Protein backbone atom coordinates (compact mmCIF):
# COMPACT_ATOMS: atom_id res chain seq x y z
CA UNK A 1 0.00 0.00 0.00
CA UNK A 2 2.70 2.42 1.01
CA UNK A 3 4.59 1.62 -2.16
CA UNK A 4 1.91 3.30 -4.21
CA UNK A 5 0.89 6.07 -1.84
CA UNK A 6 4.42 7.02 -0.88
CA UNK A 7 5.49 7.10 -4.51
CA UNK A 8 2.65 9.39 -5.44
CA UNK A 9 3.08 11.64 -2.45
CA UNK A 10 6.86 11.68 -2.20
CA UNK A 11 8.11 15.25 -2.34
CA UNK A 12 11.40 15.49 -4.13
CA UNK A 13 11.52 19.19 -3.34
CA UNK A 14 10.43 20.72 -0.10
CA UNK A 15 8.70 23.69 -1.76
CA UNK A 16 6.18 21.48 -3.54
CA UNK A 17 2.76 21.26 -2.03
CA UNK A 18 -0.30 19.09 -2.62
CA UNK A 19 -0.81 20.73 -6.03
CA UNK A 20 2.24 18.91 -7.27
CA UNK A 21 0.78 15.58 -6.16
CA UNK A 22 -2.43 16.31 -8.03
CA UNK A 23 -0.74 17.14 -11.31
CA UNK A 24 1.47 14.05 -10.93
CA UNK A 25 -1.67 11.99 -10.53
CA UNK A 26 -3.16 13.42 -13.72
CA UNK A 27 0.10 12.82 -15.57
CA UNK A 28 0.15 9.17 -14.50
CA UNK A 29 -3.48 8.64 -15.49
CA UNK A 30 -2.77 10.33 -18.84
CA UNK A 31 0.20 8.07 -19.51
CA UNK A 32 -1.70 4.89 -18.65
CA UNK A 33 -4.65 5.85 -20.86
CA UNK A 34 -2.33 6.89 -23.69
CA UNK A 35 -0.54 3.56 -23.59
CA UNK A 36 -3.71 1.56 -23.95
CA UNK A 37 -5.24 3.93 -26.53
CA UNK A 38 -2.19 4.03 -28.80
CA UNK A 39 -1.29 0.35 -28.82
CA UNK A 40 -4.88 -0.81 -28.45
CA UNK A 41 -5.70 1.40 -31.44
CA UNK A 42 -2.80 0.00 -33.47
CA UNK A 43 -3.90 -3.53 -32.55
CA UNK A 44 -7.47 -2.72 -33.56
CA UNK A 45 -6.27 -1.40 -36.93
CA UNK A 46 -4.27 -4.60 -37.45
CA UNK A 47 -7.42 -6.60 -36.69
CA UNK A 48 -9.37 -4.50 -39.16
CA UNK A 49 -6.83 -4.60 -41.99
CA UNK A 50 -5.83 -8.25 -41.79
CA UNK A 51 -9.16 -9.54 -40.56
CA UNK A 52 -7.75 -11.19 -37.45
CA UNK A 53 -8.83 -10.89 -33.82
CA UNK A 54 -5.70 -11.01 -31.64
CA UNK A 55 -4.43 -7.49 -32.38
CA UNK A 56 -6.61 -5.53 -29.96
CA UNK A 57 -6.00 -7.64 -26.82
CA UNK A 58 -2.26 -7.89 -27.48
CA UNK A 59 -2.09 -4.16 -28.21
CA UNK A 60 -3.96 -3.29 -25.00
CA UNK A 61 -1.68 -5.43 -22.84
CA UNK A 62 1.45 -4.19 -24.59
CA UNK A 63 0.34 -0.56 -24.26
CA UNK A 64 -0.57 -0.96 -20.60
CA UNK A 65 2.80 -2.62 -19.91
CA UNK A 66 4.68 0.14 -21.71
CA UNK A 67 2.76 2.85 -19.88
CA UNK A 68 3.36 1.23 -16.49
CA UNK A 69 7.05 0.96 -17.34
CA UNK A 70 7.12 4.67 -18.20
CA UNK A 71 5.32 5.64 -14.99
CA UNK A 72 7.67 3.54 -12.84
CA UNK A 73 10.71 4.88 -14.71
CA UNK A 74 9.66 8.47 -14.23
CA UNK A 75 8.11 8.55 -10.77
CA UNK A 76 9.55 5.60 -8.83
CA UNK A 77 12.97 7.19 -8.25
CA UNK A 78 11.38 10.04 -6.32
CA UNK A 79 11.12 8.06 -3.10
CA UNK A 80 14.78 7.07 -3.12
CA UNK A 81 16.02 10.66 -3.29
Amino acid sequence: MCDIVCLAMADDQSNRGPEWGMSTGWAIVGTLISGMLVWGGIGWLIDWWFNVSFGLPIGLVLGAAGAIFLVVKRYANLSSE
Partner: protein
Amino acid sequence: MEKAVRVSLAAEFPPGLKDFDYAPLADFHVFGVEFAITKLTLLTWIAIAGISIFFLLAVRKPQLVPGRMQWMGESAYGFIRDGMARQVIGEAGVRFAPYLTTLFLFIVANNIYGVIPLAQISPTAKISLPVALALISFVLFNWIGIRQHGAATYFRNILFPPGVPIWLYPLLTPIEFFSTLVVRPVTLAVRLFANMFAGHLLLLVFILGGATLLASDNFLFKGFSFFSFLLAIVLSLFEFAVQLVQAYVFTILTASYLQGALAQQH
Protein backbone atom coordinates in the same frame (compact mmCIF):
# COMPACT_ATOMS: atom_id res chain seq x y z
CA MET B 1 -52.29 33.41 -19.62
CA GLU B 2 -50.78 31.52 -16.73
CA LYS B 3 -51.76 28.29 -18.41
CA ALA B 4 -49.75 29.31 -21.48
CA VAL B 5 -46.64 30.01 -19.39
CA ARG B 6 -46.90 26.67 -17.72
CA VAL B 7 -47.28 24.85 -21.00
CA SER B 8 -44.29 26.60 -22.51
CA LEU B 9 -42.14 25.68 -19.49
CA ALA B 10 -43.29 22.10 -19.48
CA ALA B 11 -42.69 21.83 -23.21
CA GLU B 12 -38.99 22.27 -22.67
CA PHE B 13 -38.66 19.10 -20.64
CA PRO B 14 -36.60 16.92 -21.13
CA PRO B 15 -33.58 19.20 -21.64
CA GLY B 16 -31.12 18.38 -24.38
CA LEU B 17 -28.52 19.76 -26.76
CA LYS B 18 -30.99 22.39 -27.95
CA ASP B 19 -30.60 24.11 -24.57
CA PHE B 20 -27.01 24.94 -25.45
CA ASP B 21 -27.89 26.60 -28.75
CA TYR B 22 -28.68 30.27 -28.50
CA ALA B 23 -30.21 32.24 -31.33
CA PRO B 24 -27.64 34.62 -32.80
CA LEU B 25 -28.20 38.21 -31.76
CA ALA B 26 -26.15 39.28 -34.76
CA ASP B 27 -24.25 37.39 -37.40
CA PHE B 28 -21.83 38.36 -40.11
CA HIS B 29 -19.39 36.81 -42.54
CA VAL B 30 -15.63 37.25 -42.61
CA PHE B 31 -14.01 35.70 -45.69
CA GLY B 32 -16.95 33.34 -46.06
CA VAL B 33 -16.79 32.13 -42.45
CA GLU B 34 -19.96 32.71 -40.51
CA PHE B 35 -19.67 34.42 -37.15
CA ALA B 36 -22.57 34.76 -34.75
CA ILE B 37 -22.81 36.90 -31.65
CA THR B 38 -24.88 34.97 -29.10
CA LYS B 39 -25.67 35.33 -25.44
CA LEU B 40 -22.54 33.26 -24.71
CA THR B 41 -20.36 35.68 -26.67
CA LEU B 42 -21.82 38.60 -24.75
CA LEU B 43 -21.24 36.84 -21.42
CA THR B 44 -17.59 36.23 -22.33
CA TRP B 45 -17.15 39.87 -23.33
CA ILE B 46 -18.69 41.00 -20.06
CA ALA B 47 -16.29 38.68 -18.20
CA ILE B 48 -13.31 40.17 -20.06
CA ALA B 49 -14.50 43.71 -19.37
CA GLY B 50 -15.21 42.93 -15.72
CA ILE B 51 -11.78 41.39 -15.05
CA SER B 52 -10.04 44.23 -16.92
CA ILE B 53 -11.91 46.91 -14.97
CA PHE B 54 -11.27 45.04 -11.71
CA PHE B 55 -7.51 45.05 -12.22
CA LEU B 56 -7.39 48.56 -13.67
CA LEU B 57 -9.20 49.84 -10.58
CA ALA B 58 -6.95 47.75 -8.34
CA VAL B 59 -3.70 49.27 -9.67
CA ARG B 60 -4.98 52.72 -10.54
CA LYS B 61 -3.31 54.42 -7.61
CA PRO B 62 -0.97 51.84 -6.06
CA GLN B 63 -0.15 52.64 -2.47
CA LEU B 64 2.17 51.13 0.08
CA VAL B 65 -0.80 50.49 2.34
CA PRO B 66 -3.31 49.11 -0.13
CA GLY B 67 -6.91 50.26 -0.30
CA ARG B 68 -9.76 47.80 -0.60
CA MET B 69 -9.65 47.38 -4.39
CA GLN B 70 -5.88 47.18 -4.44
CA TRP B 71 -5.98 44.62 -1.66
CA MET B 72 -8.45 42.45 -3.57
CA GLY B 73 -6.42 42.65 -6.77
CA GLU B 74 -3.18 41.86 -4.99
CA SER B 75 -4.76 38.94 -3.13
CA ALA B 76 -6.06 37.42 -6.37
CA TYR B 77 -2.70 37.82 -8.06
CA GLY B 78 -0.75 36.74 -4.97
CA PHE B 79 -2.89 33.63 -4.57
CA ILE B 80 -1.94 32.39 -8.04
CA ARG B 81 1.66 33.65 -7.93
CA ASP B 82 2.54 32.11 -4.57
CA GLY B 83 0.06 29.25 -4.41
CA MET B 84 0.50 28.07 -7.95
CA ALA B 85 3.36 29.60 -9.95
CA ARG B 86 5.89 29.29 -7.09
CA GLN B 87 4.50 26.03 -5.71
CA VAL B 88 4.34 24.14 -8.99
CA ILE B 89 6.96 25.73 -11.23
CA GLY B 90 9.35 27.22 -8.68
CA GLU B 91 11.02 30.65 -8.70
CA ALA B 92 11.20 30.55 -12.52
CA GLY B 93 7.42 30.35 -12.54
CA VAL B 94 6.85 33.88 -11.25
CA ARG B 95 7.05 35.23 -14.80
CA PHE B 96 4.08 33.04 -15.72
CA ALA B 97 1.99 34.35 -12.83
CA PRO B 98 0.27 37.06 -14.96
CA TYR B 99 -0.83 34.48 -17.54
CA LEU B 100 -1.93 31.96 -14.90
CA THR B 101 -3.87 34.62 -12.96
CA THR B 102 -5.63 35.85 -16.10
CA LEU B 103 -6.41 32.30 -17.13
CA PHE B 104 -7.76 31.38 -13.70
CA LEU B 105 -9.96 34.46 -13.32
CA PHE B 106 -11.23 34.23 -16.90
CA ILE B 107 -12.28 30.60 -16.43
CA VAL B 108 -13.78 31.32 -13.00
CA ALA B 109 -15.83 34.19 -14.43
CA ASN B 110 -17.02 32.15 -17.40
CA ASN B 111 -17.79 29.13 -15.22
CA ILE B 112 -19.78 30.81 -12.47
CA TYR B 113 -22.16 32.29 -15.04
CA GLY B 114 -23.76 28.85 -14.76
CA VAL B 115 -25.25 29.69 -11.36
CA ILE B 116 -25.68 33.46 -11.77
CA PRO B 117 -29.35 34.38 -12.26
CA LEU B 118 -30.24 35.61 -15.77
CA ALA B 119 -26.94 34.38 -17.20
CA GLN B 120 -27.48 30.75 -16.10
CA ILE B 121 -25.21 29.20 -18.71
CA SER B 122 -21.44 28.84 -18.70
CA PRO B 123 -19.84 29.87 -21.98
CA THR B 124 -17.36 27.10 -21.16
CA ALA B 125 -20.23 24.59 -21.47
CA LYS B 126 -19.69 24.80 -25.22
CA ILE B 127 -16.54 23.07 -26.39
CA SER B 128 -15.17 26.00 -28.41
CA LEU B 129 -14.07 28.18 -25.48
CA PRO B 130 -12.26 25.37 -23.58
CA VAL B 131 -10.60 24.32 -26.85
CA ALA B 132 -9.35 27.86 -27.44
CA LEU B 133 -8.02 28.09 -23.87
CA ALA B 134 -6.38 24.65 -24.05
CA LEU B 135 -4.74 25.58 -27.37
CA ILE B 136 -3.25 28.73 -25.85
CA SER B 137 -1.82 26.73 -22.94
CA PHE B 138 -0.63 23.98 -25.30
CA VAL B 139 1.19 26.37 -27.62
CA LEU B 140 2.62 28.25 -24.64
CA PHE B 141 4.16 25.25 -22.86
CA ASN B 142 5.63 23.86 -26.08
CA TRP B 143 7.00 27.24 -27.07
CA ILE B 144 8.54 27.71 -23.62
CA GLY B 145 10.08 24.24 -23.80
CA ILE B 146 11.48 24.83 -27.28
CA ARG B 147 12.92 28.19 -26.25
CA GLN B 148 14.44 26.73 -23.09
CA HIS B 149 16.06 23.62 -24.57
CA GLY B 150 15.95 24.10 -28.35
CA ALA B 151 13.45 22.23 -30.50
CA ALA B 152 15.62 19.15 -31.05
CA THR B 153 16.43 18.57 -27.37
CA TYR B 154 12.90 19.40 -26.27
CA PHE B 155 11.21 16.90 -28.56
CA ARG B 156 13.93 14.30 -28.05
CA ASN B 157 13.33 14.45 -24.31
CA ILE B 158 9.59 14.08 -24.84
CA LEU B 159 9.79 11.25 -27.36
CA PHE B 160 12.84 9.38 -26.04
CA PRO B 161 12.76 9.36 -22.24
CA PRO B 162 16.33 8.91 -20.98
CA GLY B 163 17.35 5.84 -18.99
CA VAL B 164 15.34 3.45 -21.13
CA PRO B 165 16.80 0.52 -23.12
CA ILE B 166 16.91 1.38 -26.83
CA TRP B 167 14.87 -1.66 -27.88
CA LEU B 168 11.93 -0.33 -25.83
CA TYR B 169 11.69 2.97 -27.75
CA PRO B 170 9.46 1.56 -30.51
CA LEU B 171 6.98 0.68 -27.76
CA LEU B 172 7.33 3.80 -25.62
CA THR B 173 7.82 6.62 -28.13
CA PRO B 174 4.25 6.45 -29.55
CA ILE B 175 2.90 6.47 -25.97
CA GLU B 176 4.97 9.51 -25.05
CA PHE B 177 4.04 11.33 -28.23
CA PHE B 178 0.36 10.65 -27.65
CA SER B 179 0.31 11.46 -23.95
CA THR B 180 2.22 14.73 -24.23
CA LEU B 181 1.08 16.20 -27.52
CA VAL B 182 -2.45 14.78 -27.84
CA VAL B 183 -3.85 13.71 -24.47
CA ARG B 184 -2.69 16.83 -22.62
CA PRO B 185 -4.49 19.48 -24.69
CA VAL B 186 -7.51 17.25 -25.35
CA THR B 187 -8.09 16.37 -21.69
CA LEU B 188 -7.48 19.99 -20.68
CA ALA B 189 -10.30 21.13 -22.96
CA VAL B 190 -12.64 18.18 -22.46
CA ARG B 191 -12.35 18.13 -18.66
CA LEU B 192 -13.50 21.74 -18.39
CA PHE B 193 -16.15 21.44 -21.10
CA ALA B 194 -17.64 18.17 -19.85
CA ASN B 195 -17.90 19.40 -16.25
CA MET B 196 -19.68 22.60 -17.27
CA PHE B 197 -21.88 20.82 -19.81
CA ALA B 198 -22.95 18.13 -17.35
CA GLY B 199 -23.50 20.71 -14.62
CA HIS B 200 -25.79 22.79 -16.80
CA LEU B 201 -27.73 19.73 -17.93
CA LEU B 202 -28.09 18.52 -14.33
CA LEU B 203 -29.52 21.84 -13.19
CA LEU B 204 -31.88 21.90 -16.18
CA VAL B 205 -33.16 18.42 -15.38
CA PHE B 206 -34.21 19.36 -11.86
CA ILE B 207 -35.44 22.89 -12.56
CA LEU B 208 -37.38 22.04 -15.73
CA GLY B 209 -38.43 18.73 -14.15
CA GLY B 210 -39.79 20.63 -11.15
CA ALA B 211 -41.67 22.98 -13.47
CA THR B 212 -43.12 20.05 -15.40
CA LEU B 213 -44.23 18.34 -12.19
CA LEU B 214 -45.78 21.56 -10.91
CA ALA B 215 -47.65 22.05 -14.17
CA SER B 216 -49.10 18.54 -14.17
CA ASP B 217 -52.72 17.91 -13.22
CA ASN B 218 -51.80 15.19 -10.73
CA PHE B 219 -51.92 16.38 -7.12
CA LEU B 220 -49.05 14.11 -6.02
CA PHE B 221 -46.79 15.25 -8.86
CA LYS B 222 -47.33 18.87 -7.86
CA GLY B 223 -46.14 17.98 -4.35
CA PHE B 224 -43.05 16.19 -5.61
CA SER B 225 -41.95 19.26 -7.53
CA PHE B 226 -40.86 20.68 -4.15
CA PHE B 227 -38.12 18.06 -3.88
CA SER B 228 -37.06 18.67 -7.45
CA PHE B 229 -36.63 22.39 -6.77
CA LEU B 230 -34.90 21.67 -3.46
CA LEU B 231 -32.40 19.43 -5.22
CA ALA B 232 -31.90 22.13 -7.85
CA ILE B 233 -30.87 24.56 -5.11
CA VAL B 234 -28.50 22.05 -3.49
CA LEU B 235 -27.00 21.19 -6.87
CA SER B 236 -26.54 24.88 -7.67
CA LEU B 237 -24.30 25.19 -4.62
CA PHE B 238 -22.51 22.00 -5.65
CA GLU B 239 -22.06 23.34 -9.19
CA PHE B 240 -20.59 26.55 -7.82
CA ALA B 241 -17.91 24.48 -6.10
CA VAL B 242 -17.31 22.44 -9.25
CA GLN B 243 -16.94 25.62 -11.30
CA LEU B 244 -14.25 26.98 -8.98
CA VAL B 245 -12.44 23.64 -8.78
CA GLN B 246 -12.40 23.18 -12.54
CA ALA B 247 -10.92 26.64 -13.08
CA TYR B 248 -8.28 25.76 -10.48
CA VAL B 249 -7.53 22.38 -12.07
CA PHE B 250 -7.17 23.89 -15.55
CA THR B 251 -4.75 26.50 -14.27
CA ILE B 252 -2.72 24.14 -12.13
CA LEU B 253 -2.32 21.64 -14.98
CA THR B 254 -1.18 24.45 -17.26
CA ALA B 255 1.35 25.39 -14.57
CA SER B 256 2.46 21.79 -14.26
CA TYR B 257 2.92 21.46 -18.05
CA LEU B 258 4.98 24.66 -18.02
CA GLN B 259 7.08 23.22 -15.22
CA GLY B 260 7.59 20.03 -17.22
CA ALA B 261 8.63 21.98 -20.30
CA LEU B 262 11.07 24.13 -18.30
CA ALA B 263 12.67 21.42 -16.20
CA GLN B 264 12.23 18.36 -18.40
CA GLN B 265 13.65 15.88 -15.94
CA HIS B 266 12.37 12.53 -17.02
